[in-house]
């Protein structure tokens, strides 16, 4: 019992500790692809450190929502991290609290508050970004639903720990069309939800073209640090769900000892690194879509997910 709580805490610690690293590796890799040297992979840690030591400015006209939001944005990925398999292939102490749908809702809660906070400040760019994020969100929602429903239909459950076993026993199941199509659809979702190219350019500095970033334009100091860190953790958590549940449920600790769990950490990081390579490839080879083309991108994701569903439902 105590062990399981310990592992759960360790799991959260891994997410918190390595999320900035993943972001740093990603931006470094992108720069390298563009034949630049790029910042150190530890730069996100330095940024966070610096921001935590700066003063925070809060507009007088903003309400409690503005001050409260960074904490929610920060806490929700941590909460989800307790539910999903990050290091272990067996459920941990808090895993009973929610399934994949629950995790999705919790993440959506963070997004909801971020939107409110962006509108709250009355900065003109905030609401622009907020409304665009909502548009992407609305379009991504049905895809999420179909993906989860198909997953639960295949595995007979929405608990991630059960789902991940389903795809690889026997190994031939890995090649089921519904599985491959679901992976594709979920990958597109990660691109949309994580604000990556081709949906959004996370490194852009032009406010009018921003989708995700413009919501945090008004934050400074500690609030900004929390929002930023929370965003990095959200991506990390999404990657964990994608990789550990859908794509490659290998390398997770199956033993109940501390050693086994510790060994799983580098393996999971390796998987994430491999995926970051793929992500860099996608981001470097595609251009950002015009805003109204995003509907087509997510439409494609929707079609992929429904194709996954019908190949499964009708041939069962």
């Amino acid at each position, binding site marked *: 019992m105590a062990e399981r709580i310990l592992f759960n805490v360790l799991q959260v610690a891994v997410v918190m500790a390595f999320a900035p690293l993943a972001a740093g590796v990603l931006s470094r890799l992108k720069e390298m692809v563009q034949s630049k040297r790029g910042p150190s992979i530890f730069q996100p840690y330095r940024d966070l450190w610096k921001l935590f030591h700066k003063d925070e400015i809060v507009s007088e006209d903003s309400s409690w929502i503005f001050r409260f939001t960074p904490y929610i944005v920060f806490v929700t990925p941590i909460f989800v991290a307790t539910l999903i398999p990050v290091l272990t292939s067996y459920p941990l102490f808090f895993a009973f609290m929610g399934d994949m749908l629950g995790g999705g809702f919790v993440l959506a809660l963070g997004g909801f508050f971020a939107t409110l906070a962006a509108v709250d400040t009355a900065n003109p760019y905030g609401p622009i970004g907020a409304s665009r994020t909502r548009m992407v969100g609305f379009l991504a929602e049905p895809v999420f639903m179909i993906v989860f429903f198909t997953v639960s239909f295949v595995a007979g459950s929405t608990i991630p720990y059960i789902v991940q076993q389903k795809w690889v026993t*026997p*190994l*031939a*199941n*890995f*090649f*089921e*069309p*519904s599985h*491959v*199509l679901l992976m*594709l659809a979920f990958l597109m979702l990660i691109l949309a939800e994580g604000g990556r190219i081709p949906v959004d350019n996370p490194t852009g500095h032009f406010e009018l073209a921003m989708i995700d970033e413009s919501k945090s334009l008004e934050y400074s100091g500690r609030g900004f640090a929390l929002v930023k860190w929370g965003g990095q953790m959200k991506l990390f958590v999404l990657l964990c769900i994608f990789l550990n549940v859908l794509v490659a449920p290998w390398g997770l600790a199956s033993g109940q000892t501390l050693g086994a769990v510790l060994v799983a950490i580098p393996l999971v990081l390796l998987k994430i690194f491999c995926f970051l390579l793929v992500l860099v490839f996608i981001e470097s080879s595609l251009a950002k879509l015009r805003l109204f083309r995003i*509907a*087509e991108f997510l*439409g*494609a994701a*929707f*079609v*992929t997910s*429904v*194709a*996954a569903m*019908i*190949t499964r439902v*009708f*041939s069962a």
Partner: protein
Amino acid sequence: MSDATRLLLENLNALAAGLFLLTAFGIVAMRQARACLHLFIAQSLLLAASAALLGMRFDSGHLYGVALVNLISKPIIVPWLLRKTSPAEIYTRREIDQALNIPTALLIALALAIGAYFLGIPLANAVGPEFRGPNVPIGIAGLLLGAFTLTVRREALSLLIGLLAMENGAFMAGISIARDLGMLVELAIATDGLIIVFIMGVLVRAVQKHVGTTAVGELASLREAAAKPAAEEVLL
């Protein structure tokens, strides 16, 4: 053949079929004419893969033949023929205004695909238990989506691809339910596909030369003229 191998082959075949369906959707939605062609080539490769996998599964040399014919004719000869016959302009075109916007077209395409399943499953079951697989419904879906492409597209190349995609769809169903159709027939059908490409390429060239466009679907001068003065004339 062990059960595990059989299951693996069946799943791989299903995967090829699933991706086939995805390419069919892609052909409906892609704006660039060239991207359509690439998707069609991918679709043909998946069809060949499915035929080869079914050939392995049922130990049928004939299906290997089908796979080989598909491998040679569609990804290699079709683009070559197109380059020879039709103006290079068809590759560079993008469709700005389709008959339907892309999300709507995709939604209708989804409905068609689901309809294809309702149509295909009882068919496959009626042929025999060993024909249960994704090929028949996905083949029918490919056929319907190809036809749908023909109705929403205007550009010559995308229309041609739509036609060929229809044929691919019919084949996708065919390799499952009509496994031993005879090599002569298969070869004849493949040749026929090439003649289609040739003739349509020549037609597109003529259209481009005499009308000055490759958006063949936009030609609409032939119809019953509504208000001609003669129509008001008194009957004799």
